[in-house]
């Protein structure tokens, strides 16, 4: 008998028991997850403060390029572009990337110069699960901008 037939032939009682089992497993997963240390928004905020002080970031100027759903959390492509003329007296100094659901929030700091021509870069990052990617850009005039985007990360299926 194929699994397909087996499933359709489940009695109501069996199906209920199976569902109950699945709920217990899921609940177990939640307990395990909260027991594992990972970053949160507060840790990201602290990490940001460590790097840029207590400046208040504004919205805008930053575009994050991320998949909505990552194929695999090991290798998630990320691109960041900041709107700036990139001249000697008006340029993006640095873009810090954070992930609020990883064991540690810091991902990378990308330092630009007027010679960069364009404040844009891409790389590939590790994400431990569905979470927000936060970008904080510091301009040459001291102003700070912030953007964030969520990426859904599915659990690997085949033995993943």
């Amino acid at each position, binding site marked *: 008998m194929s699994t397909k037939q087996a499933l359709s032939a489940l009695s109501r009682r069996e199906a209920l028991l199976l569902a109950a089992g699945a709920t217990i497993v899921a609940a177990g997963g939640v307990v395990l997850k909260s027991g594992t240390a990972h970053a949160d928004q507060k840790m990201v905020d602290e990490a940001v403060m460590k790097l840029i002080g207590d400046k208040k970031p504004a919205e805008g100027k930053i575009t994050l390029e991320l998949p909505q759903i990552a194929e695999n959390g090991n290798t998630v492509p990320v691109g960041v572009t900041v709107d700036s003329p990139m001249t000697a007296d008006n340029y993006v100094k640095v873009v810090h990337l954070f992930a609020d659901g990883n064991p540690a929030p810091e*991902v990378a700091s990308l330092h630009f110069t007027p*010679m960069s021509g364009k404040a844009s870069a891409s790389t590939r990052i*590790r994400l431990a699960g569905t979470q927000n990617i936060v970008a904080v850009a510091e301009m040459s005039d001291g102003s700070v901008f912030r953007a964030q985007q969520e990426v859904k990360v599915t659990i690997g299926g085949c033995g993943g």
Partner: protein
Amino acid sequence: MAKGVKPRVRVPGKAAKGEIIEIKTLISHNMESGRRKGKDGKLIPRSIINKMEVTFNGKPVFTADWHPAISANPYMSFFAKVEESGEFAFKWTDDDGSIYEKTAKITVG
């Protein structure tokens, strides 16, 4: 890591004066996060490339600080505005102090 690390860079061979060119880099490295357990159940110590620096004719163009959240075999692309012919120099720094280097020439005009 240190042994057998292979950097790759792609810089266009030619560009017009003032053109903004895209540069791509890839380097072979496990980027061991320090949070993974080995077969013996013990944590494998952190061993990553933590910095990549790029200069053009000796002047800084782009620098990246990397944390363990950067994927294995790190890829990084970015841009550079070129005003003259010259040489890009790429330098990666490993946690163990090893330095990996590569250069690429470009003709502008």
